[in-house]
């Protein structure tokens, strides 16, 4: 019997749909398998945490999956090694990438696994994850990364120095920050600065971008195709302000290398009264300050516009590489991903190291609640997530921010160009990079 055209069409459709559904059904792990995760968690509490987590997973997973964790250096080194390993066919299954500079680079190449089908199959609750932390987890509608060791910058200050100058609270706005900075600025007989009221590191992708956001703009447009802050005057305003603060003498200009370490050392010597820095370093900051008798206050970042407070986030996301991997490897990688994103594990991760609890559920865990009770400073970081914002996704961000850093270095460290010249230079870079 000949099938009518319509019937054939319907049958074909049914077949395709069922085949499609069959193909989309993610595989389940069938037997023992070894997979590798590459990460940036260096020696000490950081590295220990992942080693212990991996050991726990290896001991408790019912499939016989064995995970090997290997440290590969900082974020740039790990990303570069991952790129070359993909080219060589020696890539790991899971890799820890910087959320903005790393994930987009691999995602745009199409080498990352879409975890959405797996999440759906296993009932993984994505709304358990704070939305701002997931901003760089989606690409082209696919779920390509999970927040793993996330942080946010905070305002750290020397409580005693502030009290001596009559400030009982941290500044809430940039205007108040300027007042505090000027008040705490001390000069010696030669007119050289002995104490700086505030310090700002050369991390414009974080701090300057945040200020621009508070002014109502952003570094790049929503579609990530062009730079918008150069035309609307917001970048100019931010750079001008920063340069003014440094010229007035109360804002410490960073050193050309190891700026963060130097800044923290100066803080511990009582030479810098306050600074912006990642919450990821909280444990070390508090411990080192205690060792020299300084009481550290921790607060939200002061905002340019009281009606629009915000803060950037940072840190690393875990992603699964699908290029050159078979179903079993991907399935095993997903099992580890689920494990690490479980509330208990995410809580332990945060409590041991000072990184943010990656899920709402983990924030409720006893180990985190106890930590926050004992040291409320850690809670400040998590609370700030409510006002956190993210830079729009763009494949050009990483290169543009690198050039922005170089130009800021000339503007703030070297001080050989003016803010207007910096804007001109940035415009040229934007033209070259955003092709």
């Amino acid at each position: 019997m000949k099938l009518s055209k319509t019937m054939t069409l319907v049958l074909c459709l049914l077949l395709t749909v069922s085949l499609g559904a069959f193909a989309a059904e993610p595989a389940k792990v069938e037997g023992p398998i070894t997979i590798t995760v590459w990460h940036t968690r260096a020696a000490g509490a950081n590295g220990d945490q992942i080693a212990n987590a991996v050991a726990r997973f290896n001991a408790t997973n019912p499939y016989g999956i064995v995970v090997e964790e290997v440290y590969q250096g900082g974020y740039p080194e790990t990303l570069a090694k991952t790129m070359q390993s993909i080219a060589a066919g020696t890539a790991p299954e899971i890799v820890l990438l910087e959320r903005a500079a790393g994930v987009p680079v691999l995602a745009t190449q199409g080498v990352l696994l879409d975890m959405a089908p797996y999440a759906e199959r296993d009932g993984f609750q994505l709304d358990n994850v704070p939305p701002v932390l997931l901003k760089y987890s989606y690409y082209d509608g696919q779920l390509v990364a999970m927040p793993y060791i996330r942080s946010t910058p905070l305002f750290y200050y020397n409580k005693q120095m502030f009290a001596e100058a009559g400030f009982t609270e941290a500044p809430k706005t940039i205007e108040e920050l300027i007042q505090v900075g000027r008040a705490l600025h001390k000069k010696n007989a030669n007119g050289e600065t002995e104490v700086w009221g505030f310090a700002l590191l050369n991390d414009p992708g974080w701090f300057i971008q945040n200020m621009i956001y508070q002014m109502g703009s952003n570094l790049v447009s929503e579609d990530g195709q062009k730079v918008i802050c150069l035309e609307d005057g917001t970048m100019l305003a931010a750079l001008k302000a920063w340069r003014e603060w440094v010229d007035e003498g109360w804002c410490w200009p960073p050193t050309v290398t190891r700026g963060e370490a130097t800044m923290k050392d100066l803080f511990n010597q009582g030479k810098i009264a306050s600074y912006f820095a990642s919450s990821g370093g909280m444990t070390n900051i508090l411990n080192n300050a205690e060792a020299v008798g300084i009481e550290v206050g921790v607060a939200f970042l002061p905002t340019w516009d009281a009606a629009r407070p915000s803060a950037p986030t940072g840190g690393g996301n875990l992603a699964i590489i699908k290029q050159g991997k078979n179903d079993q490897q991907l399935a095993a990688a997903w099992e580890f991903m689920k494990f690490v994103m479980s509330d208990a594990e995410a809580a332990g991760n945060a409590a041991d190291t000072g990184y943010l609890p990656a899920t709402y559920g983990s924030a409720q865990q006893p180990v985190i609640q106890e930590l926050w009770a004992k040291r409320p400073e850690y809670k400040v970081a998590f609370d700030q997530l409510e006002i956190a914002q993210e830079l729009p996704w763009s494949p050009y961000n990483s290169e543009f921010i690198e050039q922005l850093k170089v130009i800021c270095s000339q503007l703030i460290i070297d001080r050989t160009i003016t803010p207007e010249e910096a804007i001109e230079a940035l415009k040229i870079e934007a033209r070259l990079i955003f092709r």
Partner: protein
Amino acid sequence: MHSESIWGPKLRRGAARLPGILGKLFVAFIFLFPFYWMVITSFKPYAETIQFPPTLWPQNFTLDAYISIIGKMNLLVYVKNSIIVTVSEIVLQLLVMIPAAYAFARYNFVGKGLMFGMVLVALMIPVQVTFITVYLLMAKWKLLGTLLPQIIPFGTNAFGIFLLRQSFLQIPEEVIESAKLDNASELQTMTQIMLPMAKPTVITICMFSFIGRWNAYFWPLIMTDVERIRPLTIAIERLKDLEYGINWSVLMAGNVLLVAPIVVVFFFASRKIMEAFAYRGVK
């Protein structure tokens, strides 16, 4: 009168030498001071390392930094890797370099100019140019899990060939002629006559090779994807976790551990080196 003639000129000569001695001490100080600073910082607690004005001798001498490193890391594996890589490298380079330098110095053959030119060109290539290609090559040959990628790409020590050839060229013809008269084979001439005369150079080259491989960081970082083949340099760099903060005493302690073996080797070898340099050649 007798006493005058003894003390006068002697004292004058001594006094004349004093500025020279002081000058040399100052020079030695300039070179040693940073090293000294590194060592004493490793024995200070964190609070003291950032103290201002800095202390020239640890006030609160402590071994904490070392304990935290040695306790936390399985140093033996890294040290073992560094030793194997360094020693194998030296052996390989000697085997490759000595005949090549000898050939360039002693023979005229077609293509010699070109080949020596290639050796010189190789000297100019920074590793930033070659690393990606070599990594891909090592992956293709399935050598990535071994120590070989840290050793074989440097088999030809262009610097060594250049220096050694120079040394061989300076050996007087008579020595070689007399060896020929004694019916020595090429191999014998090379190893028993010319090599001993170039001993200072060979030792110098070995030492530079040793230091270069021992302190190498960038190349092993690229070539090692797993922990068990990593050398000591990578372990020590890992001590600075940027988001966490740098603890100077721990970092300096790590660097002291990294430098200590070289200093020990150098200390024992420098005697030999000075002896070798004292060799005057055929009189």
